[in-house]
């Protein structure tokens, strides 16, 4: 593949986005986009297979090689275009491509690629947080089905999800990592109850989910029965890749005002420098950390492609990413002072309230998907191979 043809491809993608994407949508990750306009854009994107450009065409992707898929993603990012980054696209899809049967791929991947089905993740339980493998939700075989009883927690978007990919215990007598099965089943059925959890940031995007005789089809087990732990860990790697490498650092990219602008406005400038030298140091360190994280993830990917990778960087990326996004909000709060303490208008403007909320929301980033402490354990054990 010549670089000239790649450039032509980039041009083609650019022109298509320019012609198709309405101006009101070119604003990055936001929840308040005009609904109808967004729906039309997403279906146009899906039509081309560009929600998942690297997936095979038969499963709703565009069948692009890595370089072309990266071009699509970078052009979309350059336009700050809305895309789909749900659990289906970023986690279940890649996992099914690797572990799913042909029938499972045909059944589940195309709806994900068209953004028609919302998925949620049934991993954590009240007694199984960092020690995920101690999960107790039971699945008992009954004919062609499994009957599921138990409780999940921290299930994001469970109240809007159509389906769940869930870790269940199929063999309570096996060693704890061996009795686990990865299974898919619908959320909208009598044995499933969703109870939203209100969090410290005032939001309720997470839920507790109760299973009391919920039904799953046996053909919807992904990977071997009792072999779910391997599938589950692989899926978590996709989760870490998604977050550690996201260019704008998730929530921090969606802010109405950049951190640098906020700090300049609040702290003030004297002779071309921030008036507070300590905050200036922290802001510079934060900008450098964000950049270094991006470079490190890019380097890890490039080294993996070139066969030069020595030590896996996934857990380190998640750890540093979580610390980085929290630090950004800590700096914003220092700069805002008591104007960062508002809970609602009046008295506090949009830019202030979004920072207060982000400061609270980002506390979770070092907890979910493996806490910071778990990531450090993983680095020590798996990456550095220090005996336990």
């Amino acid at each position, binding site marked *: 593949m010549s670089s000239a043809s790649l450039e032509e491809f980039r041009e083609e993608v650019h022109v298509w986005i320019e012609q198709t994407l309405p101006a009101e949508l070119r604003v990055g990750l936001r929840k308040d986009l005009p609904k109808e306009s967004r729906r039309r854009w997403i279906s146009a994107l899906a039509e081309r297979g560009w929600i998942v450009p690297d997936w095979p065409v038969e499963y709703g992707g565009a069948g692009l090689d890595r370089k072309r898929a990266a071009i699509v993603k970078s052009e979309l990012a350059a336009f700050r275009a809305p895309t789909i980054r749900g659990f289906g696209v970023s986690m279940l899809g890649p996992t099914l491509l690797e572990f799913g049967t042909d029938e499972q791929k045909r059944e589940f991947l195309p709806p994900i690629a068209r953004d028609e089905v919302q998925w949620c993740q049934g991993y954590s339980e009240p007694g199984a947080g960092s020690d995920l493998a101690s999960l107790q939700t039971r699945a008992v075989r009954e004919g062609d089905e499994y009957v599921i009883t138990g409780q999940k927690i921290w299930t994001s978007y469970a109240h809007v999800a159509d389906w769940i990919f869930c870790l269940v215990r199929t063999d309570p007598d096996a060693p704890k990592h061996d009795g686990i099965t990865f299974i898919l089943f619908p959320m909208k059925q009598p044995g499933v109850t969703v109870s939203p959890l209100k969090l410290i940031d005032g939001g309720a995007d997470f839920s507790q989910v109760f299973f009391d005789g919920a039904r799953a089809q046996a053909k919807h087990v992904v990977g071997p029965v009792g072999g779910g732990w391997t599938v589950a860990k692989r899926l978590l790697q996709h989760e870490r890749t998604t977050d550690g490498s996201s260019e704008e650092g998730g929530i921090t990219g969606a802010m109405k005002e950049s951190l640098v602008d906020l700090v300049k406005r609040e702290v003030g400038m004297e002779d071309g420098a921030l008036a507070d030298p300590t905050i200036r140091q922290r*802001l510079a360190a934060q900008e*450098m950390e964000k950049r*270094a994280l991006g470079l490190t993830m890019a*380097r890890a990917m490039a080294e993996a492609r070139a066969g030069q990778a020595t030590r896996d960087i996934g857990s380190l990326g998640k750890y540093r990413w979580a610390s980085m996004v929290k630090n950004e909000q800590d700096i914003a709060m220092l700069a805002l002072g008591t104007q960062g303490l508002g809970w609602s208008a009046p008295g506090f403007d949009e830019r202030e309230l979004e920072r207060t909320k982000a400061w609270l929301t980002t506390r979770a980033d070092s907890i979910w998907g493996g806490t910071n402490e778990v990531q450090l354990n993983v680095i020590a054990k798996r990456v550095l191979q*220090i005996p336990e």
Partner: protein
Amino acid sequence: MALTLTEDQLILRDMARSFFDEKSPVERMRTLRDSRDTTGFSHELWKEMGKLGWIGIPFPEAVGGAELGYGELGVVLSECGRVLAPEPFVSTVLLGGNAVLLGGNEPLQKELLPDVCRGERLLSLAFHEHGRFAPHAVETGATRDGDGFRIRGEKRFVLDGHVADQIVTVARTAGGSGDRAGLTLFVVDADAAGLSVQRTELVDGRNAARVTFDDVTVDATRVLGEIDRGADVLDAVFDRATIGLCAEMVGTFEEAFERTLAYLKTREQFGVKIGTFQALRHRAAHMFGGLEFARSVVRDAQSAIDDGRGDVAECASAAKARCSEVANQIGAEAIQMHGGIGMTDEEEIGLFFKRLKAAELTLGDAIYHRNRFAGLRGY
């Protein structure tokens, strides 16, 4: 942006690694230190590196260089850092050599650089007048004297100044100390009348000099760059030197980290390997993070030079701020995790600790470079 090594760079790395393992184990640096060797490094080894083309990596073929990039130079510097080789890359190539390359006219380049590339001419840069790095805080003055200039003042921390053949000297021709404008760079011969050089020993076993200029006369043909606008050259020299020094530091990080990691896996206390303690496991993970992030920003900075990007200054400061932090982190943890044995002169980890501190404080620490980065970013 070259974040990975090319095939050629991998070959160069393997060559350099075997070269240094064979000819320059860490023990050699200790021997040079303890014997109070008058040079402080090996002239012979330096010339061998010249023959291999390593000294000439960043210089054009027209002056005997290999005309390669900082990606390649970084590979060699990292290998130097791994074994603490004290050969004069920083003084002769990164500082003095870059000053001649970036500021010298053709006759000066042709006169000086071919010998530099062969390892037969040593250079240094005399800029420091204070302890903390402050590149424009220069009071050493140069006044017009006929066709030339007369220099008076005193410089410190002139790296390898005791053996340099020429000392590129930063002097003030206008303005006051701290002003960026009004600086001029001169090539001063080591045997010039009025020049006195006093060798000083450093904590890392290397050498710098105190250099006194007592009305040293220099011809106008020995000026690098433009009169009063020497900072244009100097700042670019510091950016490249900083990035090169960071590459050396990454090699030192790697080795200090691997040695400490190996110690955690073998040292036993309370009947178990000390690496089983979570307090140490997490800190080892942090060291790994420091090393990996340093490696990324240094590779990016190297490619900023090699690709002719406009953000070399930002990248240099991002790299040195990072490497200075990591030098502190890995250096301190290496000693702490080695425990009592780490405090002994006999255990080599202390040599790494001392070199890392020296490199941290050379060409600006983390605080300096965060401030500079902020300024470049408009805040």
